[in-house]
């Protein structure tokens, strides 16, 4: 039985007999994508967070079989095609969030997914959504970086809308 998963834009085949392997170990041991981290193995700490389509999932608690046919994005696949950092990664740099850094890929992936669902989160929403553990306690900086990233993403969206607007005005003038 052949299993294919799209990972960061590339199609990967999984050998028969490994379907019950957690996605985490496919990424780390088979594909050398070690940015996704092993922290607890039971889906509680969030260090292994990746995106399945646009949703955050814990790679340690999802089998390769469950991921079959899906589109997976890992931390290594977050940059754009030109190699620019994602606004969440930029915000992390601006605030200098990481200390030991081990949990941060998971924190970033969770944040990116959260901001797609909740573009302008309140502190209370951040408390509820950001369950990832950071043993170095960088939470205050993560919170600050989330607000900065939310702002940046909102401005990017606005500028996309503004670029579209002149067509509408021209059309209206023409009608008038």
């Amino acid at each position, binding site marked *: 039985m052949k299993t294919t998963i799209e990972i960061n834009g590339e199609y990967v085949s999984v050998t028969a007999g490994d379907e019950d392997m957690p996605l985490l170990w496919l990424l780390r*041991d088979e594909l050398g994508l*070690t*940015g996704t981290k092993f*922290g607890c193995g039971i889906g509680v700490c969030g260090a292994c967070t990746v995106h399945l389509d646009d949703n955050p999932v814990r790679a340690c608690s999802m089998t390769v079989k469950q991921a079959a046919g899906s589109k997976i994005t890992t931390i290594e696949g977050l940059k754009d095609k030109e190699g620019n*950092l994602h606004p969440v990664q930029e915000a992390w740099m601006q605030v200098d969030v990481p200390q030991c850094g081990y949990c*941060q890929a998971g924190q970033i992936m969770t944040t990116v997914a959260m901001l797609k669902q909740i573009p302008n989160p309140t502190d209370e929403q951040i408390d509820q959504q950001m369950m990832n*553990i950071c043993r*170095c*306690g960088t939470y205050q900086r993560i919170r600050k970086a989330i607000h900065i990233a939310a702002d940046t993403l909102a401005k990017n969206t606005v500028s996309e809308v503004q670029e579209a607007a002149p067509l509408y005005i021209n059309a209206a003038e023409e009608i008038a």
Partner: protein
Amino acid sequence: MNRRQFLKASATASGGLLLSAHLPALAGVNAQGDASQINDVIEIASDGNISVYVVKQEMGHGIATGLAMIVAEELDANWSDVQVKFQTFDSNFKDFQDEFGRFDTGGSNSVDTEWNNMRTAGATAKAMLVKAAAKSWGISESDCRAKAGKIVNQNTNEELGYGKLAAIAATLQVPEVTTYKATKDYSIVGEPLPALKNRKVVEGTLEYGIDATVQGMIHAMVVRPPHWGGSIANFDASAARNVKGVIDVITLPEMPRDWVLDRGTRGGIAILGKSTWACMKARKELEVQWQDGPHARANSNELYAEYDKFKGERAWTSFEAGDVEQGYAQADKVIERSYTSPYIAHALMEPLNAIADFVDGKHLHIYAGTQSPGHSAHNLAKALKIEKKDITITPYHMGGGYGRRYFCDFMLEAALISQAAKLPVKLTWTREDEIQVGAYHPMRKDFMKCGVDKEGNIEAFELSAVSAHEWAGGEMSLDYGYKNIKLGSKRFENSPVVCGSWRAVVAHIEIFMREVFIDEVANEVGQDPLAYRLRQLQRPVPDTHTHYHKPELLKELAMRRRIYTKLMKEAAAMAGWTPDGSNKRGKNRGLGVAFTTYHAKSFAAQVADVEVIDGQIKVHNIYCAADCGLVINPNLVEAQIESSILWGLTPVLYGGVDIVNGNIKQSNFHDMPLARMKDCPNMQIKLFNEEDRMPCGVGEFAVVPVAPAISNAIYAGTGVRHRHLHMA
């Protein structure tokens, strides 16, 4: 033994300058003639790139960036040209044989022990570049000035980059440098620069030990007896061997340990496989019956009662002056309390791991994140009965150190498996392993007693500490005034688990208990806890002590008290608390204060603003005023304080680990929770350098005031007093 190190210059193959640090050979001892190398310090490449070699280990506390900044400042480098390189630990280094060498990182002592080494290296390199430029232009050195990676000819404004000058500098004699830049001229040190490694962290490309691979390696995991002293009664590995990818199943012996620093290993069953997953899957298929060890019936909740039997016993009296019994007899009031703190696990985010190549059983190469390459190699040599000179340790960034990665047990296991398998082996611990096979923060109970006069001043102060670890009783030292004092401790010999260093170590527990006790004394004599502390800090102490500290400690007292007073007032001001003003902030909400020093180097005072809502503890704010001497990087110092506050908060809210019938009850984060985003208080931090001191370490000190400030705040708000570290 403090031989003065000196620097040596050499040219690199690609036209660069390499400065390395050497210790001169001991007279009449070393027949090497020339001094042997300690380590590379600075490399200036011909393209202008500067590598600063760091011997300390990076666990997220920013030491690599900090040390590089010190070099870059004295060197007048362009910061964007600077990168850090970590040294492999091996027998090339002169202090290789030292049991505790320069590579070993802990105790918050890295920045103050490396400060002069790094300053001198930077200043020396700059002096050589100036000389090289002067030679190149044919002008005098006094007409040359260093600025941001270039030497400028003051007469013509011509510039020569450091890269261009490196090869010439490498031919020059190394000067002795004894003067350094004035702090007012600093443009790098003191700046809130980001940590150098963080771009790789956010991209997911920073390599930790757990990410490393070595050609030809196999994987391993170990199933261990559930408690120290347990052993295998019998086991059946047939199902485990049938798991796809499993190579072999072997037994590991228990290795001896001593109770001070070498943790040894429990032994057990090692599963060897082609992948981490194969090993993880196979260990579930293993059928084992364990033989109970002597601690099989231990229960931590019964141990506190055991500790009571040792009240008053002092195997080690660290401090004594006057006669406390006489003090009590003369006192107006005598106050007695006891405090407890549980065993606590480390829970580093990166589970322990190591790659070992010990194929020939004689030469060992370890690839691992470790706090102590030198000390680990020392213990590995003893345990494996090989020469320390035949051990090489390649270090990695650690996903957390916190004192746990100071011990070499996981490396020892990897070495034994590699030797048996005759292959390089990557050993990975699971989260369950990391929680249940710990070097725990010790369980401790302190009995404290105080006699006060009619004004509430301390006449007599007494501590009797019982701890599962022998480090206890030494942190009280001199702070508050008293007439008579007796401090001592006893190690509880029958701990069912092994203990070790946990961030902030002895001070974390000892000062928690002292700062809660002082608060209780203040309450008993009807004085505001902030005002009481400030007053008692001005009280005299007797001249005569029997203690293990240096006599200089008495001279230090005046400085400590000045700093404590300043920091407490600042922290209180941030919180809006004036001495003799109210520390209540609302129904069930109050402020509490605590202060500490860490080894008399860094100082912190914190005020906690805590509310109890429907029985739940909510820490709203922590206000921290800190003095760690010269601040190398305020961004990184504040980060360590934030980190320390969260570290101190976790056991207050979530406790430690329990021992039930000999075994650690907790196994993962579902039953051993840690502080998360929702628990994070609003933290305000102010940094001071009141006494114009040199830089001091910041990795641990700010952990200490958290728990007592919270206990004191809860008392102020609710009248409920917590005397156990786990308060929720």
